[in-house]
Each structure stands twice: as C-alpha cells, then as structure tokens.
C-alpha cells in the first residue's frame, strides 16, 4: 500500500514536468493550429543552452534560467518569423512537415556540436534533497519544485490569456485570423509572440528536465510524445486539463513501474490510447 501511494505521489510530480512539455505545444496549436514536431528537440536545445551557460559562467542551473528563458523566447520569435510563418495557410501539413525537417536538422546539429554523449545539469544538493512525509513516502524537493512551477506557469498563462491585451489578441487570432487583422493585429507578429512564449516555457522545462535526467541529441522525440499524450489526455480546452493529462500520464507510468520497470513507458502509451479511443476530445475537452 505504501509502495502504491509513493508511486502515485512520484507520478504526480513527474506529471508536472510532462505538463510543462505539453503547455507549449497546446498553446501553439491553439493559437495557430501548428503541430510542432520539433518541440521535443527544442526542449533538448534549451537543455544544451543551459549546459553551455552553466559551464561557461559556472552557474547553478536554476540561475542559468535567467539566460536560457530569454534566449529561447528569442529563438521562438525568430523561428516563427523566419520559418514557420512562411508555411502557414489553410493547410495544416506544410508547417507540420517543416517542423519535422527542423527536428531532424536539430538532432544532427546537436550531434555535431555536442557529440552523442549523455549530458546532465548538476544542481548540487538540490538533486537529492527530499521531504519525508511518512516512512514509505518522501518527496524530492526538485520534483516538487517542478510540479509547483508547472502550476504557477499554467496560472500565469491563464491570467495572460484572459486578462491582458496580448492574450485577447491570441484568442482573437485563434478564433478568426482573417478578421483579427481588421483589428489592427499583424498576425505574423502575434504568431511570433505565441511561439516566443511557448519556447520560454520550453526553456524552463528543458533545464528542469536536464537536472532530473540525462539527455543526449536524440532525447527530443520521446519528450515530444509525452507532451502530445498529456495534451490529448487532458483535451485542448484548457491548460488545467493539460496539467491533469500530464499528471495522469505520470501516475500511470509510475504505478506501472512498481509492477515491472519495463512496463513504465508502455503503460503510459496504453493509457493514452484508451483515452483516445473512449474520449477522442480528451478527458476535460469539449467535443468540437
């Protein structure tokens, strides 16, 4: 029983990280119907930028976020204005294919620059610090921080979307991109800002991931899948649904791994397939 409870608690923590992978994807799809296959590789890019920043300036990885997040936001804006905006149109396929190509290029670029070796960001004592709840359950400070940060990011994003002019612009462009231009909105700029915001969140998620686990040039696609699965399980209607999707995925994986460590990844995919079969619009989404 203690093992099970512990597995659930750990799964919830991991779920926060999965949710952070997923929010950026959901935001981009929501605003501009872009399915970004390179999202996972951009997480890895953030991890490498974090690695370079920590090594160059001898920073703690969490302090390095001050550098990584703005850089990722700039990368996002430039990527959208320079590349994705040229592919946007009525058809969803061209931007998807371009993002697939970008994914391949990025993975090979990482390989050329950083070799195939596993890398990790070291955060010192924080990595092993934990809070003991009961004899069977203790919570790592780092995983707890990830969950709390995920909740804060989602709360901030909801506030931005529903209480600010830029959030209103995101929603208007998403509703009707043609008419949104008549409100004086430059859709290309709005898309750029949405991608910048998405990749700022990726910057945070990438550094947290790299503190928690090893990464290498090919890590991206598996992170992408967890992100996608969290989005689909939660449904596209709200970012809180996405958080729930991430937590469900994390818990299923964590519980399955107590039965057999080999089941961990498979169980997550199976849970995702079950949700997709029974509720294609997600657990918290509305049918469209």
């Amino acid at each position, binding site marked *: 029983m203690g093992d099970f409870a512990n597995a659930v608690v750990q799964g919830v923590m991991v779920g926060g990280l999965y949710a952070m992978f997923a929010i950026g994807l959901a935001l981009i799809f929501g605003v501009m119907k872009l399915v970004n296959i390179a999202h996972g590789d951009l997480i890895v890019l953030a991890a490498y930028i974090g690695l370079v920043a920590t090594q160059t300036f001898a920073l703690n990885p969490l302090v390095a976020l001050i550098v990584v997040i703005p850089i990722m936001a700039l990368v996002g804006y430039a990527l959208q204005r320079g590349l994705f905006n040229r592919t946007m149109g009525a058809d969803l396929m061209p931007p998807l294919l371009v993002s697939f190509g970008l994914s391949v290029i990025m993975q090979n670029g990482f390989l050329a620059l950083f070799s195939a070796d596993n890398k990790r960001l070291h955060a010192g004592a924080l990595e092993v610090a934990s809070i003991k709840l009961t004899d069977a359950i203790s919570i790592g400070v780092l995983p707890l921080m990830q969950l709390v940060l995920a909740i804060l990011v989602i709360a901030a994003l909801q506030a931005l979307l529903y209480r600010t002019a830029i959030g209103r612009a995101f929603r208007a462009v998403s509703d*009707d991109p043609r*008419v949104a*231009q008549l409100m004086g909105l430059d859709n290309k700029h709005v898309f750029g800002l949405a991608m910048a915001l998405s990749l700022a969140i990726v910057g945070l998620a990438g550094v947290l991931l790299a503190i928690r686990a090893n990464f290498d040039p090919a890590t991206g696609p598996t992170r992408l899948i967890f992100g996608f699965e969290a989005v689909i399980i939660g449904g596209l209607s709200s970012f809180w649904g996405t958080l729930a999707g991430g937590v469900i995925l994390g818990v299923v994986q964590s519980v399955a791994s107590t039965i057999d460590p080999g089941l961990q990844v498979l169980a997550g995919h199976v849970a995702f397939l079950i949700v997709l079969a029974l509720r294609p619009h997600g657990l918290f989404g509305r049918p469209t």
Partner: protein
Amino acid sequence: MPETPLLAVRALEAFYGDFQALYGVDIEVGRGRIVAVIGANGAGKSTLLNTLVGLNSAPRETICFDGEAIGGLAPHDIVKRGLALVPEGRRLFASLSVEENLVIGGQMGRRGEWTLARIYELFAILKERRQQPSMSLSGGQQQMVAIGRALMSNPTLLLCDELSLGLAPIVVKEIYGYLRAVVAGGVSAVIVEQDIGQALKIADHVYCMLEGRVALSGPAASLTREAIAAAYFGV
C-alpha cells in the same frame, strides 16, 4: 478645384486564383457621404469591401484613401488609417466576451468620439450583456457588437457588409435606425446591401453592381425602381 473624395477606387480588378471577381470598378465616396453598393449574390460587392481593407490584393494606385494610395497594403496597415469593416455574417470572436470584442476593436488607439461608454450609450442592451460570450447574443445584438467593434477604431470610413443578413425585418429596421444615428455623427460609410429598400433610404449615392462591374450609379433620389431592377438583373 473640386474637393478630393475620401475614397477613390479606379479601375479595380480582383481575382480569386484564375477567377476574376471585379472588372475595372470605379467608385467614389465623398467626405460625410453614405454610399450604397447593391447587387445580386456574386456581383462582387463583398469582394470590393474585402479588397478595400486589404484582405484581397490590389495594385497600389487603384485605391486612394484620404489622398493616399493604399491598394494591396496589409489589412492591419489599412485599418490604422481609418477604415473599418463590419464583415458579412458579423464574424465576432467566439471566445471573447461582448466587451472584449468591443475593446479589441479599439486597441489601435485611434482617438475620437467612439469609446466604450459611447457604444454602451448607443446600444444599451450591450452594456447589460457585456460579460456574456459574444455568441450567446441574438443575431441583432451580435450585429450591434460587430458595428460597435468597427466604431471603436474611430474610422473616417465605415464599411458595412450586409447588415441585414439573417435578421428579421423588424430587427433590420432597428439596426438601420442605429446606423442612421452613427452616420449623423459625420462618419462616411459604404453600405453593401441586398435589401434595396434599406439601401436607398439611407444612401446619398448608389452603385449597382452586376457580375463584377458597376452597371448603374447615381444619386439615390434620381434612380427609378425600373432602372435599378434592370441593372440588378442585367435585363
């Protein structure tokens, strides 16, 4: 020397791919004037308005607004110069509340008579419903939001595309009552309408379009029903 018109459209052509929708259209709108553009479905009326606001491409010199050639500029550039469109079918932003729809119309920051308070004064019902989702309103109320959204940018030229579309006759009458109050304030307007009666009542000048061309034009008072019917149907 005669005053230059607020809007001058010269030999405008428009295409959808290989399909030509406008063939050399000439239209003028004087300052403070109300111009009606009438015509059957597919005559090119909506294409004309969409081209004016930059949603369709056009050669620069074919559209002059306020003394400046604006053909083919980006829509967000054009609307900042003082053109506003009430689009066909209203096209409110579904995920925005009534008030957010109005506020986003005014975010370009063009100053003038129209503020949120003035819109609520004109359309009192919208003030009561301001927190509601825009699509929860009746068709007539949605049309009020669409007009209010366009007015919030304080345009010098208001373009209205089929205000009567999908509305009951009594509601159409009400909406045109509001429009009369709006244009009395001095804004110029182009009214595209299939409801010829409404168009003739409010306009100073009428253009009748047929298959992408202007088939008839003249001061509203001078046109006979017979002449309009002939131009409308091309008989």
